[in-house]
């Protein structure tokens, strides 16, 4: 236990890990504020919510009636208003008495109705989407959930933070030539490597959960994340998903995948650091393994069937459904996104675990064998 505390103290205090965590957390918040392009329905939000409130949830007969009635009300109001203005101008032309204030009084309620039309039209679009498959598409306010779930963005601050925290765990020992001393100490061999790895895993799990929580908290405060028990397909981004999950369940699943992805990244970083013994190369390896597929894959879904940390670090693609587009010749359909089945997900997770296990064994072997080889060099 004492060694754990020493290692933790080394990483968090002496190597300034705590400062990095705080700084990158702040950076993440700034990033969220900057990149959040604002609500899709900012302008008509209050009107939209006014119409949405009574019909939230599944599409029912009652909802349809409500929408029809409101639509009639708005078009009726438009006609009434036109008639009123016509009557007013007629009365002005014929010099009969209909004062402006009288007109204003009469048009007031109709104009109020028409002002809300923008909000109603958004809801109506949503209705058109839900009507295609009313079983798993519900009416809800989507801005918050879209911002949280409907993207394939990498959490860059967390990624940088992991590079900063995991890389020095082994590299620092090599660079300060501490490894030779550690290896000759009683608990400095397998015991130490095991503790270092466990500590790295612990940090990764906590940070990954915490950053997922930060996302949730931010969007919850910013937009509100209500109705988490509604089906995932209520968001258009997941329109063709075949996963039978609620919004909240999907986010919990996504956070779980992110933990796996970040753990695997940590394993890769540790592997690189023990084998290259150089900070620069370790950092390079860690960043290339994530960023090259992130920026370089023309078909993003391919990442989900490759044993790389990236797909798990993003997570959302596991819940997406197939996406097709028309091919250039207009005769057939091409796959833009191919959904990942549950079996494939399970195989990928199993594969990552096997690879991680092998890598960890290799890390042990490499770190411990190290001293033997050096001794050979000294006394040939």
């Amino acid at each position: 236990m004492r060694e754990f505390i020493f290692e933790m103290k080394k990483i968090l205090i002496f190597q300034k890990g705590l400062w990095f965590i705080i700084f990158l957390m702040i950076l993440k918040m700034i990033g969220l504020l900057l990149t959040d392009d604002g609500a899709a329905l900012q302008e008509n939000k209050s009107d939209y919510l006014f119409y949405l409130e009574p019909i939230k949830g599944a599409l029912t007969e009652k909802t349809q009636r409500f929408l029809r009635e409101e639509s009639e009300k708005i078009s009726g109001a438009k006609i009434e208003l036109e008639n009123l203005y016509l009557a007013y101008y007629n009365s002005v032309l014929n010099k009969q008495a209909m004062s402006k204030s009288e007109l204003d009084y009469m048009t007031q309620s109709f104009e109020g109705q028409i002002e809300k039309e923008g909000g109603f039209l958004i809801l109506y679009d949503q209705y058109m989407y839900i009507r295609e498959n009313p079983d798993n598409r519900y009416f809800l306010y989507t801005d918050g959930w879209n911002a949280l779930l409907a993207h394939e963005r990498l959490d860059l601050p967390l990624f940088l933070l992991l590079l900063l925290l995991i890389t020095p765990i082994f590299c620092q020992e090599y660079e300060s030539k501490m490894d030779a001393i550690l290896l000759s100490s009683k608990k400095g061999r397998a015991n130490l490597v095991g503790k270092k790895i466990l500590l790295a895993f612990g940090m990764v799990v906590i940070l990954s959960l915490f950053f997922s929580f930060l996302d949730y908290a931010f969007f919850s405060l910013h937009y509100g994340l209500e109705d988490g028990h509604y089906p995932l397909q209520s968001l258009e981004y997941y329109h063709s998903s075949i996963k039978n999950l609620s919004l909240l369940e999907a986010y919990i699943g996504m956070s779980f995948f992110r933990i796996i992805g970040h753990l695997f990244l940590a394993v890769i970083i540790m592997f690189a650091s023990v084998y290259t013994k150089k900070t620069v190369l370790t950092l390079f390896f860690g960043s290339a393994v994530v960023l090259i597929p992130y920026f370089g894959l023309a078909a993003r879904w391919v990442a989900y069937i490759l044993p790389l940390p990236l797909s798990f670090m993003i997570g959302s693609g596991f819940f997406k459904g197939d996406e097709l587009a028309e091919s250039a010749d207009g005769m057939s359909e091409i796959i833009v996104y191919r959904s990942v089945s549950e079996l494939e997900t399970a195989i990928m997770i199993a594969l990552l675990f096997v690879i991680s296990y092998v890598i960890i064994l290799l890390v042990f072997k490499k770190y411990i064998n190290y001293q033997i080889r050096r001794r050979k060099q000294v006394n040939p």
Partner: protein
Amino acid sequence: MKIIGYEIRKNYLKRYLIVIIFAFTLVNVISIYGYYETSHVFSTEKDDSWSKAFWDLYEENYKGEITIEKINRLMEIYSPLYQACVVERTFNTEYDPDTFTGYEFGDYRMLDLGFVRPMEYAYTYREKALEIANNAKQNMIFFSSIDNVYQYRSSLKIASLYEGRQINNFYNTEMYDNLFSYDFSSFLILLTVIVAIVPVFVAEKETEMNLILSISKKGGKKTVRAKIASACFFVTGICIWFTITDFFAFAAFFGLTGLTNNLYALRDFMLTPLDITMWEYIIVSAGVKILGMQAVSAVILFISSLFKKALLPYVISLGALFSMMLADELATTKHFNPFDLIVNRELFRHTNLIRIMDFPVHEYVGVILSVALFFGVFILTTIRVNKNNAWLTGGRR
């Protein structure tokens, strides 16, 4: 000069760097192939009747100068198809061996996408350009009448730029459309540059060589300058290497044709301020990109010269890259951001003029100059920060 050679040998002729460059070249080519697979309209492998029909017609009949005879010949086969597939919608959906692609609708789509639309664009471009030039001329008369010198000058500039523009030749532009919107190789260059440049200053400190260097005759200013110069050489070299790889890979996958075609033959570059051909643009764009890369590497050099260990400068450099990318997306002004030179098509797609002392100047000139200034400032700061040389100052800092 000799010292620069040593720096290059020490910092860049490393085995791992050569492996990285080789591996990245491979990744780049694979990525370009992936890009081709997902975005090509007509495959150059001619493995389907649709692509084969297009390339056969293209090579034999329509490539090269646009003539009335060619247009008539094309319209003769296209008009009835258009009538059947779009106007009357009475086309035959069965396989038909007498068609080019096997299906009537396929023929229509192939001719429409491959020939009619691009030729129509090329043919009508002259008129569009003339219209812009004429409008600009009218503006000239108006602005000179109200004594607005600046607006007069900008109209004059636009009029002279667009007058006489025309596209006489028809070439398939798929390769250029895709090559000019491909950025991934720049990202690979950036990753390589970080891993190569971060150790340039840090390595001396990690091996405590900086102490010895600081007491040697050429160990101060001269070494710093040599380090900067060698970094510039390396960045230039690697940019050229990836430009060449990009070009050959795109040419191999999409098919190389029409290198001497005008840049504005691409619909995306309809309003480009550059009156140059495709191959000239490839060189101009590469040159501008190199300047952008130099500016980024100056930032990385500066950051790494401040630290003793590689960890922080590497991560900060990576973070700086992402912030520049983000700024490129979010900021309204393009000036001072090297990323606008690295992803430079936005700069050359539209004719934007900026006002400098009552003279209209192309926006890209302004952006290039501002990034050059940015580059200079970082280089000078790096030199200033690192100039201490105990040998010359008699031991004082």
